[in-house]
């Protein structure tokens, strides 16, 4: 649930009963006030009537009066010390309904005679007034309520803006570009605290990342020198004519292993360099041309394996890509298609303006998607030597150069498709 929804929800839960209670209280008070006023009027009317009666009956006559509003008549009942005021209903012919009346009743003694006094006042106006007041209040309260909600929403939206901004920044954060990331100061203290922490965090992450990267690069570089030393010693050792065949084989195997280590190192370095965008270029290359070049370069291997290569060049597939990376891309894809093929197998290549496709036959099982393009995940699957970095390099090159690479296994063919990425958002491996 959104924070705003939540605050609004709690606001509603507390405000609705509060407003209802306030309304009820106001109407009640209002009604009481009206009754009080009309009761006062009734009492003052009565006092005037009693004064009038005292003068009117001074000569000993009996007084009798009966109107809908006022009845005064002699009675035998005891004198009431206080007047009682009640609300009664009586039928009105004009309105055709019961109409509420406020009625004062008292038995008074005037010149020794007891008189019953009833004074009534129609409450019709009051009811109408009350109803009006209720409606007005309902409108005002509802308006107030709605206005509060809208303001609450608008204010929240405004207040949370810096938070949203920070959030969006975090969402689009990329390790390589974290250096330029800055969460600016706002006029809200809490967000300032948050942004300051975020600045600190991204700074630290970036620093760690750079350190790590430099470490990897330096480690890889530093590793090449000892490898060079060992390789040169092994090569010299091989020149010894007194070596037994076993010893020669041991040395050769060491050389092979060393070469693998060195190639692995180079692969990792290449990946690091691609990640660091050390191969930025404004040049455009034609994938079709590069493909042709590599097909030509590998012609001997293709011939030796008796592979059939079906090519279909419909377009150039021009792309801004560093020639080294373009070469590496095609080299890896075509190399794999040759290496993992069987004798007299098939390779299909098609290049059009926006699409590069290569597929090959192979005895290997389809590559499971969780291993596809992952570093060092596939090296145990094939009898051929592999450093397990080829496809990771392909994927990395595609990723940083607005290309999308996909893999499929269909009709006994392993195929890779390379297309331009449309509306690409930044993504990480």
């Amino acid at each position, binding site marked *: 649930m959104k924070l705003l929804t939540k605050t609004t929800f709690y606001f509603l839960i507390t405000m609705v009963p509060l407003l209802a209670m306030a309304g009820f209280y106001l109407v009640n008070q209002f009604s009481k006030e009206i009754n009080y006023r009309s009761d006062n009027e009734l009492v003052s009317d009565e006092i005037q009537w009693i004064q009038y009666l005292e003068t009117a009956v001074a000569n000993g006559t009996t007084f009798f009066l009966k109107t809908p509003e006022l009845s005064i008549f002699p009675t035998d009942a005891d004198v009431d010390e206080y007047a009682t005021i009640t609300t009664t209903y009586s039928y009105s012919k004009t309105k055709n309904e019961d109409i509420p009346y406020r009625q004062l009743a008292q038995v008074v003694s005037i010149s020794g005679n007891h008189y019953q006094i009833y004074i009534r006042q129609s409450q019709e106006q009051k009811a109408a007034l009350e109803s009006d007041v209720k409606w007005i209040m309902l409108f005002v309260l509802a308006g107030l309520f709605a206005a509060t909600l809208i303001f609450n929403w608008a204010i929240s939206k405004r207040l949370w803006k810096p938070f949203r901004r920070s959030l969006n920044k975090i969402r689009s954060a990329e390790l390589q570009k974290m250096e330029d990331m800055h969460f600016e100061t706002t006029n809200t203290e809490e967000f300032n605290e948050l942004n300051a922490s975020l600045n600190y965090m991204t700074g630290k992450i970036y620093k760690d990342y750079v350190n790590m990267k430099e470490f990897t690069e330096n480690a890889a570089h530093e590793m090449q020198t000892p490898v060079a030393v060992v390789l040169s010693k092994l090569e010299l050792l091989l*020149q010894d004519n007194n070596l037994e065949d076993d010893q020669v084989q041991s040395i050769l195997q060491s050389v092979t292993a060393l070469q693998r280590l060195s190639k692995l190192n180079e692969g990792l370095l290449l990946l690091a360099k691609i990640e660091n965008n050390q191969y930025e270029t404004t040049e455009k290359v034609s994938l079709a041309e590069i493909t042709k070049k590599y097909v030509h370069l590998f012609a001997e291997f293709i011939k030796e394996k008796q592979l059939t290569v079906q090519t279909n060049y419909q377009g150039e597939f021009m792309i801004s890509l560093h020639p080294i990376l373009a070469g590496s891309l095609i080299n890896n894809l075509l190399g794999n298609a040759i290496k993992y093929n069987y004798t007299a197998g098939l390779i299909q290549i098609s290049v059009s303006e926006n699409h590069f496709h290569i597929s090959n036959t192979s005895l290997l099982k389809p590559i499971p998607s969780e291993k596809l393009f992952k570093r060092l995940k596939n090296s145990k699957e094939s009898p051929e030597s592999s450093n397990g970095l080829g496809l990771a390099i392909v994927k990395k090159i595609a990723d940083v150069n607005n290309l999308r690479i996909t893999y499929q296994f269909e009709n006994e063919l392993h195929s890779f498709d390379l297309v331009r990425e449309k509306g690409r958002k930044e993504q990480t491996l």
Partner: protein
Amino acid sequence: MIIEDEQALQESILKYLDHQGFVCEAVSDFLQAKDKLAGFDYDCIVVDIGLPYGSGLDLVKELKYMESKAGIIIISAKNALEDKLAGLDLGADDYLAKPFYLSELTSRINAIIRRRNFSGNKVIAFNEIKLEAEAQLVTVNDKPVVLTDKEYQLLEYFIANRRRLLTKAAIAEHIWGEEYLHVSNFDFIYSQIKNLRKKLLEAGSGDYIKTVYRAGYRFTDQ
């Protein structure tokens, strides 16, 4: 002249080149190198980029400033494109990334010395076999032999590293470059070598290409 700060590697290079008949000197830091280069003329200088007290690239600059005629090969642990381009821009003749095969270094030194050798002849000879580098012409007992590009490279490489045991991997990397590693194991060099040997034998040369069982090949007249 070998300028390499890694003592063990320096020794290996010296030993191998010595075997191949080169007269070599070696130094292991920038200052020594500068002294030597100022005092003596060399045919070829193999220089590492990362040196104590200075960069190998600055030595290349220095040599060019002195208008030295020496061929220059840069060797570096950094297989970085920028280094390579910077080195070649400064006037180095070749660039070799560590780790490399000594046989590869030897072959490149040979090529450079031959190219630099303006006064003398540019013919490489091994007994009755003669290679005319510029025309890529091969003769056996003065009779021309027609070789493919790859076979020619192979022969040149063999002669540069004569009498050395050359592993299949080193040969493959020399002829086909690093790309081959993506494609195949190096058994495919067998047919190339077989063809080369056949052509040379047919032309009347000695059988110099010796197969070293399960290891590689040796080009030798012994």
